[in-house]
């Protein structure tokens, strides 16, 4: 028995170290970029493993992105998509990769598919429409996934709104994305206006006016110039809705 005691001790030491490592991994896991087995599997063979292994994630992500341009020029959908997804998996916090992957899939790949099938003259209009929707949906899925990981969601929301409006023709969904973008702290000036216009165009006129008015009153009016173009748009809406003088936004001192 004494002969085996040192080996037993080594076994206990390794098991103890393993238990300690498990507990420490649970604690540090949230601090490490969220790449998991699920994200790794489809990117095998693209150099992602090297990035994960070597701590050169950013560099390998950049190289994968540059290589994806080569496939983009060749209009090679699987190659281009695999490399773009690799870049996203390697650096999930980078908004740039998610945004451009979503837009490239949503905007370009349906055209490649149509050309591959013989061109716009040959492919029936319904099939073209179906392809635009299909790839638009895929692009949206990428953008949705990116919103979970990327630090800044606003530009992803704007890109999603653009795809939902242009490719899916789903105005409610598009308005919803633009609304979320407009309500984020780093919202660009045009997000609210586009949201209201799309909602208005979708027939939700009263809701569009109500939201836009509230947005202008709470977030835009207090700004340096009071965003006069947005007020003009609101005045047009008030006229079209035939609102009474008391229901309208009170006249501003700087308004002509």
């Amino acid at each position, binding site marked *: 028995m004494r002969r085996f005691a040192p080996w037993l001790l080594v076994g206990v030491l390794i098991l103890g170290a393993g238990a300690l490592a498990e507990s420490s*991994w649970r604690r540090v896991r949230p601090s490490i970029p969220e790449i998991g087995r699920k994200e790794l599997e489809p990117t095998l063979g693209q150099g992602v493993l090297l990035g994960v292994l070597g*701590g050169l994630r950013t560099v390998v992500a950049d190289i994968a992105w540059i290589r994806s341009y080569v496939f983009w020029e060749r209009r090679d959908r699987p190659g281009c998509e695999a490399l773009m997804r690799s*870049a996203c998996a390697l650096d999930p916090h980078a908004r*740039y990769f998610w945004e451009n992957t979503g837009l490239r899939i949503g905007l370009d790949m349906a055209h490649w598919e149509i050309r591959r099938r013989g061109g716009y003259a040959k492919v029936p209009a319904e099939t073209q429409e179906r392809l635009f929707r299909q790839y638009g949906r895929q692009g949206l899925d990428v953008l949705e996934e990116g919103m979970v990981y990327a630090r800044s969601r606003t530009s992803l929301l704007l890109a999603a709104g653009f795809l939902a409006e242009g490719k899916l023709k789903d105005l409610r969904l598009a308005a919803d994305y633009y609304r979320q973008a407009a309500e984020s702290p780093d919202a660009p000036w045009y997000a609210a206006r586009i949201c209201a216009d799309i909602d208005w165009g979708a027939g939700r006129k009263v809701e569009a006016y109500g939201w836009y008015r509230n947005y202008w009153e709470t977030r835009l009016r207090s700004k340096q110039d009071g965003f006069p173009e947005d007020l003009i748009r609101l005045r047009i809406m008030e006229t079209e809705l035939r609102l009474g003088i008391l229901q309208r936004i009170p006249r501003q001192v700087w308004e002509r």
Partner: protein
Amino acid sequence: MKDSLRRTLWISRVTFLEAVRQRFFAFLLVLSAAMVLSSVSLRVFDFGHGELKFIADFGFGGMFFFGSVLAVVMTAQLFFSEIDNKTALTLLAKPLSRPEFLLGKFFGAWAVLGVFVLVLASLQGVVLWAREQELVAAAEQAGRIPTTFSVVGLCQLVLLQWLRLGVVIAIVLAISSLARTFLFTVVVGSLAVVAGQLQWIAQDAFLRPTDSPVYAAFLWVSTRLIPNLQQFNLADALVLGSSVVEEGALISVGFSGLAYLVAYLTLGSLIFRRREI
């Protein structure tokens, strides 16, 4: 005890001096330093990351990669040079025990890698600081919030990387004690580093519920036998503050690293005691 420590330190000193004089060490140090310095000019190839992140990733990537190569190859070379030149026989004929010899080799190699990590981290710190000054000035002009890096985080990362390389050395020494050739040790040692870097995949899988007890048992054993080296890669969180590291998590990582280090050194000593030289 005091004599044993003295003998171990003596072996460490000789090992350190021997390793530092090697051209391989100098070559990898210069290569890694060049990689750290070139990160500034290569940042034009960067997309969508913060500039400091790219520079940090490039430099720390070099530190990780060349540090691992050095830890595997240099440790195996230092060990087998003693065996092949028969100097180990002479040394072990003196009142020097085999565990002392192995420990001496370990501390010598670890000290060399300490110098390696320290030199590279200092260079990385200077490069990051210089670029940070430019970025802060540019951000102030544009009215944006500047990106910064943490010196304390850099120091913590240096310690973590050094500990990680210590674990690698301990594993390589355990393999060397068993192996007959240098090549075998380098190949198996490199595979062990790769397995350690990918161990977190098994660890993540183990944390999820599974129906198969065999699969669960396999994951349980593999997650304990192979150290999780990925947990030392906290450069983003520590140096650039990309995410918050839970309080006490670093100490926990440190303890687990030390525990693996002790476990593999004990294993190596046990195997080496039974080895015919």
